[in-house]
């Protein structure tokens, strides 16, 4: 995607041509939805968070400077939207986490009857879900959204080196979680 054009469009939004945000929406609503879905695995919440990102883009349009890649700015807003949501829902989430932990140890219904490919898909989804939030974000932004390490570093406010280490450790943890879950589900 031509990032210069993205910037030019956002600058027009900043100057009051709000319709140009529609073009940015058409371009980025899917990547943002995928980003949130892989973080939350909740379709409705992911849509709400996408909406929240575009609301924030409108709200803070006058602060857009046009420096750096547009996607870095956009995913920084997305990250904050997710953090804010998480904080707001913290109490409810804590209760849910307790439930999820209990459920997580149970094998999903029909796991043993699934073919190998379906089992793998399920294991990957469950493993990504259980990954530490910062590591999960690095994997999503790098592997799925195609951002460069230095761009992810800017979003997470750490060095590029730290992101590379985080990426490796995320993959290592993911491998471990997949192995553990696979053993747990197979023994039930």
């Amino acid at each position: 995607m031509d990032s210069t054009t993205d910037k030019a469009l956002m600058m027009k939004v900043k100057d009051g041509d709000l319709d140009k945000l529609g073009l940015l929406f058409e371009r980025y609503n899917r990547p943002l939805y995928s980003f949130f879905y892989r973080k939350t695995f909740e379709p409705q919440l992911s849509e709400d968070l996408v909406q929240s990102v575009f609301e924030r883009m409108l709200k803070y349009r006058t602060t857009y400077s046009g420096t750096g890649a547009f996607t870095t700015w956009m995913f920084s807003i997305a990250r904050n939207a997710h953090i804010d949501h998480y904080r707001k829902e913290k109490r409810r989430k804590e209760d849910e986490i307790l439930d999820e932990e209990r459920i997580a140890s149970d094998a999903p219904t029909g796991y043993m009857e699934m073919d190998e490919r379906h089992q793998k898909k399920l294991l990957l989804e469950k493993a990504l879900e259980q990954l530490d939030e910062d590591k999960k974000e690095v994997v999503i932004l790098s592997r799925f959204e195609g951002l460069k390490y230095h761009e992810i570093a800017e979003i997470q406010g750490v060095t590029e080196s730290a992101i590379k280490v985080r990426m490796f450790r995320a993959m290592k943890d993911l491998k471990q979680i997949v192995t553990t879950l696979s053993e747990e589900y197979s023994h039930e």
Partner: protein
Amino acid sequence: MSEKNEKLIADYLKGMLDDQGKREIEELIAEGDIDFIDFRAIEQLHDELDMIPIPEQSSNLSKNFYTMLEEEKGKSRISIRNTVREKIMEVLNQVTMPRLAYACILLIAGAFIGNQMNSNDAEIKELTSEMQTMREMMMVSMLEGPSTTDRLRAVNISAQLPSVDQKAIRALFFTLNNDESINVRVQSIEALSRWGDNPIVREGFVKAIANQESDIVIITLADAMVELGLKNSANEFQRLINEKDLNSATKLKVENTIAVLS
């Protein structure tokens, strides 16, 4: 494993390693500093992540966004109107009686001078017309030039013209249909939109749809069609979807445009 090696593997996963970097990994594996089985398992897992499915979004996402955008545009218009009203009230509040008298004197003087100048109206009109012709000539000539910057400047000159003749419109459409620069094409759409009441412009826009390859030009054109209410462009857009392999976002935008225009 050392952080240096962890970073090296992260670079490998991202496809950032050159031949020397790849050799370095091979050597580390050969020396046992990187466990080969672990390395392969991580690489395979990285590839397999694509298997995680993403459900389809509901149509509400798009609907909610455009509703929110319309609301914001409404708020923005009200805010501009209020600002103008406030400014006018500010000026009016400052007009005390002596100032009001001064304003009246200026108004009468202006009317008198205007009346005196009426005799030269024909000359002024002629001069204005000549200047506009020169501007148009300059614009057409710059549009044909090799420099992208000049062509962009030419398109912008058209925006300063109070009206344009057929030659200038033809030149702008030639630019829209043939210019190698996407930016110039996009600017020409915006320039031509100003003359959207002109039947030649309306017809030219519809015909231009079939000539476009760039997503951003197609999207800008789609926006212009909606803005100008060119309902007869819906068929051309449908043909574009049928005949060209548009990317999914552009296709969605065009489908939305057809829905709005139909």
